């Protein structure tokens, strides 16, 4: 008797779970509150990391330069210029 009902139950459960999951996003604070695992870094550890944070700020121009250089394939452009004397429009 139970067998023919099994697929129906599965469909209903799947639909219900879909409905349950399809709700609006939770507020970030609520997600954090509900999470089983979370690691909090104490404020004093954040303060002690300030010299490193400063180094990251100082390195920011280098970061942007490297992003740009890689994006335009600066290495290939220079290599082509040195080897073949080719301009930008002749890769």
């Amino acid at each position, binding site marked *: 008797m139970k067998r023919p009902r099994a697929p129906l139950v599965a469909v209903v459960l799947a639909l219900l779970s879909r409905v349950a999951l399809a709700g609006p*996003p939770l507020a970030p604070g609520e997600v954090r509150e509900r*999470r089983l695992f979370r*690691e909090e870094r104490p404020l004093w550890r954040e303060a002690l990391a300030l010299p*490193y944070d400063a180094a990251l700020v100082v*390195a920011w121009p280098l970061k942007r330069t490297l992003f740009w250089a*890689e994006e335009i*394939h600066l290495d290939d452009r220079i290599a082509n210029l040195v080897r073949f004397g080719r301009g930008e429009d002749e890769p």
Partner: protein
Amino acid sequence: MFAALAGAPSVAQPIVWKDNDDLPIAEPAEDHEGDFIWWDGVRDMALYPLGKILDLGELAHEVGELAHIVGPEEAANVNALDEVPDSTWFINRHARRRLSAEALAQGPSGVETEPAADGPLVILSGKSLGMTPGFVMRDAKGDRYVVKFDAPQYPEVATGAELVCSRIMWALGWNVPEYDLFVFSDRRLTIAPDATAKDDYGRKVPFTTDILAAQLKRAYRLPDGRIRAIASRFVPGTTKGSPSLLGVNRDDPNDTVPHEDRRDRRGLRVAAAFINYTDARRGNLLDTFVPDSKERGSAGHLVHYVIDFSSALGAGNIDWKDPKLGNEYLVDPVKGLERAMTLWLVEPAWARLPLQHPALGYFESSIFDPEGWKPSYLNPDFDRATLRDSFWGAKLVASLTDADLRVIVHTGHWSDPRVEDLLTAILVERRQRIARVYFDWLRINPIDRFIVQGSSLRFDDLAVSSGVVDASVTRYRYRFERGAWSSTQAPIVPLADAGPARIEIETSHDAGERWSPPTRVSLAPVEGALQAAELERVTR
């Protein structure tokens, strides 16, 4: 999160085997910083080490660790049994419940997912990243794939590595895209009218027949003219770029453990060493946002993947991997200085390695050192790995038996049958080396899988079960609540009664001469049955 054991709990909470990091969140922004390898290398090789000095808290901890005042900073996402629960980053698979040979061979999808055998293959764009030639296409079923080839002079090298290593990583527990062998005739290829590619200078240009011809010129063809390729079906969801190796994604409220403190990120080092996945960098991680419903703006969650194994084993994407990689960083100032001090007269061992086989390059096991193994450049997550993280990673690797490895290696579809034997033998030896290093009883007690059976606690000695130590030299000693030690040759502790208990166990692999650091197990009723409820591994 879980404090050290204070005593046996009378009743314990169920063990957390599923992390709830898939709570519904709003769609996060894309982050493509990981696509830029130059900055990635500079940051990880120069700024990250600098951070160990400039972050004063970090520095104090390092000094404290050297002085044995504090222990190592252990991973944060482990349960009471020191295991990693299933999450959007990692799912316990073969090491927890053995997969069938069919499942190991099938890999992530569990079903056939390769592109349609007939019909047009429509090129949608060139591959935006990576060195391997290829493109993005749509098959007759409407599925989208990334297609990658072997270089003509290096048949099966990159595609074989991708097929085998993606299955290994999936079996161990990481999320990977599906990678299938795809042999096709270029006559099936057509180019979508709006298809684009990038030129040599990274500029977007229309994908023309000339570009296609140039791509196919860089592809290895079988004797019958067809192309051997890898087809990787697009993973579900919207791609969001690569997660950072340090810190959390502030756009993802589910991301509450800094990535460098995740065991699945730290322990990946051992698996990466096993398959020589030297390209284990930020750019080879991928996040996708999977919505909970098809409605526009639906809430969902991120899923995290490890991708691109075309430079694992002996493959270097388009050729053989330089045998230096895995042994040294791409730019390794320390090794460079060491060599300079010997006036470059001492040749490193890797420089004398013979080619193993044209399909495997220089991938080998004779000089493989699991602890000395290095990715192409420093990976901060790997750098944070403690012995307990590596022990966990080694457990995963050791779960693959010789037969399992043979099944997976077979999926590489190697034309020379000798490759299967050779690659299996190399992987077996690398696995054994990993077991010898990380199941070393003088550093960590290699016992695991605790089960209460009747009136005894049984466990496995992983060094014995993985075949690196003979059972005849093993001894175990145990005591209850700091009582007197009793010893036994079998991995069994008799229990006086069926109540909660806290047992300290040490292992000897030299017949009782020396003893391992202790492992402390608390037994308590969990959901009605007495079982291991908490575990503390001490390392030396």
